[in-house]
């Protein structure tokens, strides 16, 4: 008899706890995050996670959204699509979030989009791959600039510099392949001829064979498309082979690490980059300058360490989502509609203007062209 009472009492306690937590949950907007915090892509995921936590804290300190506190549930995908899928299932079914930010890389994003679409939960990816938003899915957005825009920015600069023939050298992984596709397909539009297209392995120790071949083909410039450390090897080899035509790099190397790795060989390299790298060089009239300065100050106060453009993707994603949450009372359909209606949001990455046909919302103006001189960035006009 006594035991029965005990069981009953416990049941009551558990039930009341459930009720209480249910009541609390109604006041909180739960949003999910999936980032490659550890593993190969940790240089993306780590600043993204930190930025998201910082932003949520800031928003809560300012009173939340329409009186609702934000709560971030963040999982680490380790850059592994399988882990991203298990994370998204946890977010959707266990944590029941109303929107998701991330993942950090294109493969992990593509692995989870079907799950978020099915559950009709808005997703704002921080990955660059153009496949994420083409064709446009109503529930999927992204904040990172596409390769499409980076290539357009490079070709625009080449056109002004009078470069007509180029040789391209891309890394043989998803990043390089995607870049190669854009380089080849957009060349004609800018009146540029690709005379030779070569590739190198992400772990290759030497690329002189490829560079010698390109040099022999006699282009006006070489475009190298890859992420560290490969392009630094290319830059070093190009210097050793005394190749004196301009070497263009992709936005994938836009970090001080590239200059450190390539050393002297980095000088003279030209690349497109997000504005965050050159904030102090920007015109005061640039609307992004203030946003970037604020973000950098807040980030450096909290984490010590430099900001990167990657953290900026999460910065924009959280802000875009926070704006969309306003007046939505947590309704996912409304959040989605608000996101799609976003116009003229000036963020760390660029100015976002979403439409039903464009869920990236950026223009080539999100990139600036920089040249490395004496081991530091200089802005090209």
């Amino acid at each position, binding site marked *: 008899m006594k035991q029965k009472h005990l069981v009953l009492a416990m049941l009551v306690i558990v039930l009341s706890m459930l009720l209480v937590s249910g009541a609390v949950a109604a006041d909180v907007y739960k949003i999910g995050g999936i980032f490659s915090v550890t593993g190969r892509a940790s240089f993306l995921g780590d600043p993204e996670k930190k930025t998201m936590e910082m932003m949520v804290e800031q928003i809560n300190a300012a009173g939340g959204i329409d009186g609702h506190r934000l709560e971030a549930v963040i999982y680490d995908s380790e850059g592994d699509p399988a882990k991203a899928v298990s994370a998204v299932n946890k977010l959707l079914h266990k944590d029941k979030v109303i929107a998701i930010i991330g993942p950090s890389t294109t493969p992990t994003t593509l692995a989870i989009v079907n799950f978020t679409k099915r559950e009709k939960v808005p997703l704002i990816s921080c990955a660059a791959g153009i496949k994420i938003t083409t064709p446009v899915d109503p529930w999927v957005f992204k904040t990172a600039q596409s390769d499409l825009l980076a290539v357009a920015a490079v070709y625009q600069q080449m056109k002004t510099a009078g470069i007509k023939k180029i040789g391209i050298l891309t890394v043989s992984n998803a990043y390089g392949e995607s870049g190669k596709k854009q380089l080849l397909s957009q060349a004609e539009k800018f009146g540029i001829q690709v005379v030779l297209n070569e590739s190198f392995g992400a*772990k290759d120790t*030497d690329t002189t064979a490829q560079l010698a*071949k390109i040099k022999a083909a006699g282009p006006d410039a070489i475009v190298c498309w890859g992420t560290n*450390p490969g392009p*630094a090897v290319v830059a070093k080899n190009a210097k050793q082979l005394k190749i004196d035509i301009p070497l263009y790099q992709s936005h994938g190397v836009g970090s001080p690490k590239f200059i*450190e*790795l390539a050393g002297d060989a980095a000088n003279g390299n030209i690349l497109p980059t997000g504005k965050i790298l050159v904030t102090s060089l920007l015109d005061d009239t640039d609307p992004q300058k203030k946003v970037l300065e604020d973000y950098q100050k807040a980030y450096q106060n909290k984490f010590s360490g430099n900001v990167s453009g990657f953290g900026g993707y999460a910065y924009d994603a959280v802000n875009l989502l926070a704006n969309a949450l306003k007046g939505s009372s947590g309704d996912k359909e409304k959040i989605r509609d608000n996101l799609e209606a976003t116009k003229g949001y000036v963020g760390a990455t660029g100015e976002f203007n979403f439409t039903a046909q464009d869920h990236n919302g950026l223009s080539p103006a999100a990139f600036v062209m920089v040249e490395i001189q004496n081991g530091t960035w200089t802005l090209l006009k």
Partner: protein
Amino acid sequence: MQEIVQYLFSGITTGAVYAVIAVGLSMLYSSTELINFAHGEFVMIGALAMVTLWVRIGLPLPLAVAGAVAAGCMLGLVFERLAIRTARNPQPITLIIITVGASIFLKGAAMIVWGKDPFSMPSFSSHESIEIFGAALLPQSIWIVTAALVLAGGIHLFLKQTLTGKAMVACAVNKKAAWLSGIPSEKMGILAFGISAGCGAVAGIFIAPITMSSYDMGTILGIKGFCAAMIGGLGSLWGAFAGGLLLGILESLGAGLISSALKDAIAFVLLLLILYIRPGGLFAAKEAKRF
């Protein structure tokens, strides 16, 4: 013409690195019949130790090289003592799986010690590249090829001229008979481990200035070294050396003349072809199995 020379230069440089790695692998195989899949990680340890000793601490170059080689050797001995000798069931397959495990462990440990970012290192000598037939020859390439030749020559002399070396050869030919005639075969195995790991470290030290060193650089280099040793005939010193050079040159010519996207494929298809025609490798002597 100019390009062909350039492809050859670049092929010989990478080839010499593969050769040094292959020599280490082959050396260990002939004395212990063990294929060490953690061999590539010793290359990584050599390169990263060099980053620490030369770039960070600023030791003079010869001292830093000696230190990095010593670090590689020491690690090889520790590895033998802790992982290989303690194996309860020393079947070759068990030991090979242990080396795979050790490879993952070393990679993880290096990631913790040195972090995930790659490191860059200046060239050993600050000379300009030399032009021969219009192709650029890097000073570091000369360093690498010299180091490879000196190392292989040194091991050759050691095995042929010194008593310890001859004892090692004896162990390799017939362990039991060597033991019966008073050669401490176990000690020879340990020595082989040390030398093999040292070879790996040397490869890492000399390759570091032409490429970027990071905790995960070892695996692919280990595999390339393994291929080179197979081409030359596992267990043969100069066979492994020639195999390394051949693999490097094939890769570079494949990249230059056919397509860089197929670079690795060309090299591996040739490896399969060679093994199909000569299963023992190109330079494996028919009667004497090893050395």
